[in-house]
């Protein structure tokens, strides 16, 4: 039976497209907080992720320690992030250094000037995006969800917009739901929800409302079995995506068994 063929179902979806590259998996993985690098490699394999983000500050370019790079398969995109940047200029310098160091030209801009809440500075992120996009970087900016910032970023050349769901590392889930919904509705670039997603159910909810992808790190890396958790997130994200493209019926507040208001019009007298 054709209806039972999962490949057939998935074929009805189009892949996630960023800067001309196509991705069939919509789960992005952060690489911090893992207890060892093999565990990260296991998560990449179990989840089938095709994009991982790595902080340049944690890449051992001197290779005096154990480098993270050999643990990331060649066909997985390394999205270098500018963790540690406090303003646009620092983010730009980190991104350029990443490119010079052979880490490619995909960059997730993180500009954070608050060590307590770690909220991104949207204004500085826009400035950094303008500069880096004009230099040919594929720029994925991490922001506090805000429509004006998102518009400015796309105008500046951002390939996607990455709004946070809640405070980074908090596992609080989709606290910024209503504002992310607006970005999904209004922006033409992919919306990748990043930070704060603490459970596969939250990731599924994010995808059901139409997000294009979800990035998770803390919830996977700090779970008792990261490889299993990564797979659970990946499956939840796929399930949420399928639910979204299947156009689920909306939730209703009351039971709706028949047509109590207009049913009489169609009754045979």
């Amino acid at each position, binding site marked *: 039976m054709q209806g039972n063929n999962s490949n057939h179902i998935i074929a009805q979806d189009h892949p996630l497209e960023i800067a001309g590259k196509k991705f069939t998996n919509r789960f992005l993985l952060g690489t911090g*907080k893992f207890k*060892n690098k093999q565990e990260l490699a296991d998560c990449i394999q179990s989840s089938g992720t095709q994009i991982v983000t790595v902080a340049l*500050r944690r890449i051992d370019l*001197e290779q*005096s320690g154990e480098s993270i790079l050999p643990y990331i398969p060649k066909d997985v995109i390394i999205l270098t992030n500018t963790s540690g940047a406090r303003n646009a200029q620092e983010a730009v310098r980190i991104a350029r250094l990443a490119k010079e160091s052979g880490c490619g030209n995909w960059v997730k801009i993180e500009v954070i000037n608050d060590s307590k809440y770690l909220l991104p500075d949207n204004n500085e992120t826009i400035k950094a995006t303008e500069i880096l996009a004009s230099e040919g970087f594929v720029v994925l900016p991490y922001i506090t969800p805000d429509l004006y910032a998102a518009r400015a970023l796309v105008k500046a050349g951002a390939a996607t917009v990455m709004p946070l769901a809640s405070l980074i590392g908090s596992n609080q889930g989709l606290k910024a739901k209503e504002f992310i919904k607006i970005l999904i509705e209004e922006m033409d670039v992919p919306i990748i929800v990043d930070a704060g997603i603490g459970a596969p159910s939250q990731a599924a909810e994010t995808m059901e409302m139409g997000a294009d992808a979800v990035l998770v790190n803390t919830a996977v890396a*700090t779970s008792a079995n990261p490889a299993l958790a990564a797979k659970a997130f990946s499956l939840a994200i796929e399930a949420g995506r399928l639910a979204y493209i299947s156009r689920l019926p909306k939730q209703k507040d009351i039971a709706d068994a028949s047509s109590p208001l207009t049913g009489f019009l169609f009754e045979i007298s």
Partner: protein
Amino acid sequence: MITQKEINDILNDKSPESVEALANAARKITEQYFGRTISLYTPLYLSNYCSSKCTYCGFNSHNRISRIKLNSDQMHQEMSHIANTGIENILLLTGESYQATPLSYLKEAITIAKQYFPSISLEIHPLETAEYQDLYCAGADGITVYQETYDKIRYSQVHISGKKSDYAYRLSTPQRIAEAGIRQISLGILLGLGDVKYDLCSLYAHLKKMESAFPGIEYSLSFPRLRKIKGQDFAVCDIDDITFIKIICLTRTLFPRVGINLSTREKPLLRDHAISLGITRMSAGSATCVGGYHLLTAENQDPQFDVEDSRSVGEIVNMLKSKNYDPVMTDWRRIENIPA
């Protein structure tokens, strides 16, 4: 903000149940915010010249020790030795002598250190904002400055003479460092010097004030316990292990994202357990005297304090791995520091 009474109550209760409960809370928060990672660094003493007289310190200007200051060739030798162990974060230290280790000397040390280490911090005598800015532009990422004790009377009793006896100047130092644009600031109290509960409450208030005024800075805290120097007691530290661990755990629960440093002043057993309770950075393979890595033999060394954990960097790395922690060698990538 936690009150003095609450701190007193928490530290006074030494029942195993209360220690375990606090440790559980601290461990959970640490894993959530930092995962299972520990950053490593090594201290390098550049000079033991000091113009201050502090009763508890081996570098005290009145102590009859051989005074040494590394020249540039010696810096290269010591730094190359440390870099070969795999360490990428260096902490450069001096005694507090404005004459022997002026700004030009510190800048020279940073310039040389840049050839070996992606991340450079300094623990030196307090400076003016413009001087800190010079160090920042030269390549300094972090500055460590401990108030030692926030009790003014006790402070004056142990800091007898020299620039360090100026309590107010030292207290305002973190602000000057922040204004200069430095990325990381480490604050701390020397346990055993003053009343620990009062000092802890004052340190928390100081950190809180700094966080509000300069939110973009990465802060870390240290709680060094007074140690013997060449086997001799210069002051008695009455902070037992239970209190020490409670201080770390309490700090973690109050400041979830702040870094907490642990030096080789502590014994291996305690260090190995503390990593899961809130510590984020630890020193490894440390020598606490000038020339201690390569230049001097053990019997010719005059340390600032005696090291309790003499394991090598490799041994610390293996210990961390055996406990399922990822040793982080690199946590910063040098970019040109431009004044704000």
